[in-house]
C-alpha cells in the first residue's frame, strides 16, 4: 500500500474532458461510494475518508459525526469507523491519496480504481466546500455517481 506522494502525481495528471451538454440536474448527483471488503460493505456518503493518527480518536469522532468515515492506518489494514462501527479494510487493496479540494477527489476516483481519497483532521472544516466542488466536477463530466465518474472521459497530461 502507498500513501500520498506517488499517487498524488497521478491524480494531478488527470484533466477532465468538459461535457457541455450534461444530461442531468445537479440534484441527480449521488456522492455515495461503497467499499466492499470480504463479504462486507462500507458506504461513504462523503466519498473521502478522514485519516487520523489515533485509532481511539477515530472511533470517537465517528460517533459524533455520522456523515463521515474516520480511519486509522495500521500495519496492513485501514481501520475505518462509521458511526462508531469498525470496518477493517485490507490496506493492500487501497491507495490512499490526500486531496485538497473536490476536483481532486473526482480526479482520484478517475485516476485509479484503487485510489481512496483522504483528508486529514485540519481539513475537516472544508468538507462542505469539497462536497460542492465535487458535485460541480461530476456535473461537468455528466457523472451521476462515482461509478460514472470513474468512466468519465479524461485526458492524462
Amino acid at each position, binding site marked *: 500500500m502507498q500513501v500520498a506522494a506517488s499517487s498524488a502525481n497521478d491524480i494531478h495528471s488527470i*484533466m*477532465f*474532458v*468538459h*461535457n*457541455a*451538454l*450534461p*444530461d*442531468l*440536474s*445537479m*440534484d*441527480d448527483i449521488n456522492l455515495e461510494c461503497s467499499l466492499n471488503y470480504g463479504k462486507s460493505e462500507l458506504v461513504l456518503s462523503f466519498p473521502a475518508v478522514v485519516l487520523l493518527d489515533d485509532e481511539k480518536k477515530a472511533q470517537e469522532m465517528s460517533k459524533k459525526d455520522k456523515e463521515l468515515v474516520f480511519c486509522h492506518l495500521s500495519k496492513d489494514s485501514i481501520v475505518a469507523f462509521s458511526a462508531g462501527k469498525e470496518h477493517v479494510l485490507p490496506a493492500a487493496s487501497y491507495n490512499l491519496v490526500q486531496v485538497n*479540494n*473536490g*476536483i481532486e477527489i473526482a480526479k482520484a476516483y478517475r485516476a485509479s480504481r484503487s485510489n481512496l481519497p483522504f483528508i486529514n483532521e485540519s481539513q475537516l472544516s*472544508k468538507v462542505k*466546500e469539497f462536497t*460542492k*466542488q465535487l458535485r*460541480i466536477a461530476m*456535473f*461537468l463530466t455528466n457523472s451521476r455517481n462515482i461509478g460514472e465518474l470513474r468512466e468519465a*472521459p479524461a*485526458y*492524462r*497530461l
Partner: protein
Amino acid sequence: MDEASLTENRKMEHINIVLEKDTQYKEKTTFLEYVKILPNSGSIKSDEVELGMNLIGKELSSPLFVSGMTGGHSVAFGINKNIAIAAEKAGIPMGVGSQRAMVENKQLVYSYDVKKYAPNLFLIGNIGSTKLLSYNDSRIQEMVNDISADMLAIHTNPGQESVQPEGDLDFRNTKDRIVELASHLDKPVIVKEVGNGISKEVAAQLDEKVFGIDVQGAGGTTWIGVELFRNKDKSLGSFWDWGIPTALSVLEVKSSFSGSVWASGGIRTASDIVKALALGADLCGMAKPVIMAERKNGAEGAYVFLSGMINKIKEEMADMGFGSVAELRNAKVEITGTLAKLASQRKLKMDKRIGVKQV
C-alpha cells in the same frame, strides 16, 4: 427587483467585469501554440490573398465573426449597434448576447435589433440551452424573426451556470430540445459554449442535427472566472481553468461532427486565426477584444480593430504563401506538445495532412 431587472443588472455587471478585470484563463492556453503550419513555397502579396467565403448563401469578406455578447439594456444597445455597424462594414457576421431578456420583455427588442442600422449584416441570434426548455418553438422563431437573424446560436454553459450564484443547474433534456428546435426553426442552428469547449462525445450527439458547432474553448475569457468575481463563495476558484483548450476542442469536434466547425475562445491574433483555419475550422470568432475596442472608440474603434485583423490575416497568409482560405485548409500542419499527446490519447480522427509529432 423583478426577474427581468435582475437579468439586466447581471448583464451590466458581466460587461463591467469583462472590461475591468483580468478574466483570462490563468494556467491554460488555447493550445494554438502547438500548431505549426508548413508554409507553401513561393511568395504572395497580401493584397492578393482572397479571404472571401459564402455562409448559407451570404457573402462574407473573411472567415471571422464577432461572438455573441450582449443585449437587454440601453448600454448593450449602444454596444450592439456599434459592433453591428463595424461588422457590416468589415463584411463579417456578429452575434448578439442571450435574447432571453427580450423574450421576457418585448420592449427590449430594440437593444438586439441592429439590422436597422446595418441592414446587410449577417446577424446571429442567441439563447441558452436550458432556456429552450421553457420556450416553445414558435416563441424562439418569433425571437429570431424579431431581429431578422440569419442564424441562431444556442449557448450551452454548464460551467458558468455552476459557478453563477443564480445559476441554472438542470440540464436534463437540453440536447434533445436543441435537436428538436433545430429541425423546426426556419434558420440554421449553431451550438456554442462560452469558453469551456466542446468534446467529441457532445459533438457526436449533434452530428447531422445542427448546422454547426462553435467550440468556444478554453484559453481566452473564462466565464467561470467572470462569475467567480460575482460569487461570494470563493472556494470555487479551483474551477477557474476548467475546460478544453480551443485548438484541442476544434480537433475533438472535427473528429465526430461533419457540419460547420467554428473556432473561438481566446482567439487574439491573426496567427491564432490562421492556425485555427489550418486545423480545419470554417470560421474564427472573437468576443472580448471586440468589446474592448468598441468601448474605447465606438463603431470606429471596433471597425479599425476588425479590419486591421483581417489585413493581418492576409499578411500572415501571404508570408506563408497561401493565396486563399481553401489553400490554407489544405496545408500540411504539424501538431506538437500537449496538443499532440492529448489528441492521440483520445484517438481523434484527423485529416491526413495533420501530422502528430509527439516527443
